[in-house]
């Protein structure tokens, strides 16, 4: 039914809260969806799963706003929720395992099709990230996206000191692994 057929009074029923909420949520969406989806993809290595996580994260933001709870730092809040969702759904392990199982076959196909070196590197890095515990992986991906240590600590709900220690361990563990794999020096 087109708008001109819509009874005028129906418009009265639209509460302005909805407009405010839509503005708020969609502004947060447009500002964060790309890096959050990239983040979710780095955690899950599965585009559908990343979509699911991002959608669920923003639906929770809708609920928060509707309940009158607007996060103080929306970006940090989004990352925290997304990271928690990824952990609690246990997707990471499954997807990582799936990747490791199929990796040899993929590599053969990839070699035959001449993939871009950068793509291979990304895939290798993403696979390597799966050796890290959830929090460490989230922290390194956020750091790669340009978040400061303080922002990462905020998003993960940790202190700066413990985040600093955790991130050092994560970086060192990843580096050692990649050196052993011949990917890094």
């Amino acid at each position, binding site marked *: *039914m*087109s*708008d001109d*057929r819509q*009874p*005028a*009074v*129906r418009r*009265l*029923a*639209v509460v302005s809260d*909805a407009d405010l*909420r*839509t503005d708020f*949520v*969609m502004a947060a*969406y447009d500002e964060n969806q*790309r*890096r*959050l*989806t*990239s983040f979710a993809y*780095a955690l899950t290595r599965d585009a*559908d*799963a*990343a*979509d*699911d996580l991002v*959608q*669920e994260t*923003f*639906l929770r933001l*809708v609920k928060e*706003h509707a309940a009158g709870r607007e996060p103080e730092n929306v970006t940090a809040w989004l990352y925290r929720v997304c990271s928690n*969702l990824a952990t*609690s*759904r*246990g*997707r990471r392990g*499954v997807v990582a395992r*799936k990747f490791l199982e199929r990796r040899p076959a993929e590599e053969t196909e990839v070699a035959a099709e001449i993939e871009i070196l950068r*793509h291979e590197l*990304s895939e290798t*890095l*993403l696979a390597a990230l799966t050796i890290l515990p959830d929090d460490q992986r989230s922290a*390194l991906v956020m*750091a*790669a996206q340009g978040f*400061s*240590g*303080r922002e990462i600590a905020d998003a993960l709900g940790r202190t700066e000191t413990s985040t*600093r220690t955790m*991130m*050092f361990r994560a*970086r*060192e563990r*990843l*580096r050692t692994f990649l050196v052993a794999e011949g990917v*890094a*020096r």
Partner: protein
Amino acid sequence: MTHDHEAAQLAVASLDFELTPAERTRMEAGLAACPECAAIAASHIGLQGMLQQLPVHDASLIVRQRVMRAALVPPRRSQWQVLLVAAALLGLMLAGAAAVGAFRSQPVDQLTDVPSSSPPALGDVVSPEPSPSVDPSASPSDGGGSAFGAPLPHDSIAEVVSGRLRIRSQPRVADDSVKYEPLLGVGARLMILDGPVTANDYDWYQVAAWDPKDPQATFPAGWVARGDHDGTPWISEAADVCPTGEVTIADVVGLAPAERVACFGHRELRLRAFVTDGSESYACTADPGCTNDGPSWLTDLGGSTAEVDAQSAAAGNGPILAIDPDGAVRDRSMPSGVMAILDGSFDAPAAQQCRALAGSSAGPTTDLAARLQCRARFVVRDVTVDPAYPKLGAAVTATDRLRVRSTPGLDGARYELLAKGTPVWVVDGPVVADDYEWFQVIVPSLEVDGAPRVGWVAQSDHGGERWLSGRTLECPAPSDVTVADLARLMGTGESHGGLTCFGDEPITFKGEVEMSCGEARPTWLVQPDWLGPHALYTVAISDGTDVVNAHFRPELGLPKSCGGQDTSIHTIQAHFDDGDAATCEAPTPGGTSASDARALVGYWCRTALVVDSIDPMPGAAGS
């Protein structure tokens, strides 16, 4: 890296954090003095550069649409707010109409833009089915935009919000669009399979329907209109259907089959679930209720389901399992009657090959609805069963001090604390309660009111440490058993040893025979009385040192008397787990639960040694 590499650590920290001036000084001095630190730091900087090359992804457009839609729909208003809105609506639209009742009774075409020249068939739609009414609890803003806002997405779950909704065979009001029965009531749920198709000024959706309030009711697949011409919805998206957080088998069992598809799609799931014994699977086409044609591994009937535990398996609400032909599982390796970790997913791509079986007697369906049934199978790619997991009818021991309780769960009355190594017999389970998996066990070494203790124990702690483990018994060959062996295996601490070793296999042994009499007025009156624990007449078989009691069927013709020892050596054939044990029963003495009584009586009858024949040894001296 060692503590000596503080400079490297500080350099790495500086990638993400502000260093204090003192730290910065130490870092710079350290890097200058320690070439290895500098190399490590450079390696980390290189790694950071690599991480910055991680791929960039945008969410699908549909995600944006869904988020926007969710943001647009205001939270449910309180009743008085709804009434105010309804009153405003009425006042403006129906100046002159006195009351809501009048609104309800108006023909729908007076409230909408349906032209008066609408085809006579329209009356068929406006009343009585779908039979719209103004429901004050339904938020008018469920619509908006093009009457109802964005189209209902395919594979989403909708709910009937206005009662008596009609399913039709075609997306239109016409003679060739068959009106199906039964009508859908408020709260019935729908999986959106196709649509919208606009016809007769309605938006039609193809749906598969079910009623959560009446799970037995079945509805033909077909088309329903989304709502009235004035924007009053008859169906709207169902909220909060899908579980959040880690998906458990309890979450899955709590959802209707279509909801599992809608919530999880083809996502990889790892479920710890009780795999039912299941029935042997058979070709779908061999069943009159079959509606599907497609890959046999997705359409065959029977087979196992995944359930929360053995108790809930009786309801059979869990997803039907299919075995991925390309997975690691084979038909024969599919476990049954145990807890297993199942790796798999719903919505197998091969389900797209499923079609409605022409001429099915199960009622009308559509290809999409038939496909949905295939999609709702949980396709198992891999399965893991802990070989040490307790099995029913198995002898196990407590690996630690273990509390026996009256019922499964921490609310159960606390019975004894078993010492480490206590033999128990597993009767029933697992039952999941309070996040533990419980088994009903019999503890032969604990006697309570003349019977072994029956109770429930948890099989492991939350970390997976086992509290029960399988017990290995020293079992002689069935043809080479001695009375001493049987006395050892049937001792009071573990009267199920013979059953554990031999099952129902015949055994042969030698001994002296004496008729024996039981209690005249036992507490438990087990039927059949010759097999029960207090059978009036049994045979005591002795090797001169050890003695075991055996039961015998009346038709064996042994003299029923007490005493009468035959000191000559006889060859005895006997067995455990007699076929009649399956039907053993007894009136339950006061204070014993039916569950405990069933467990005890079954235990007594199955562990009884039953004589098949007693023959004198050739050349043996008679008494």
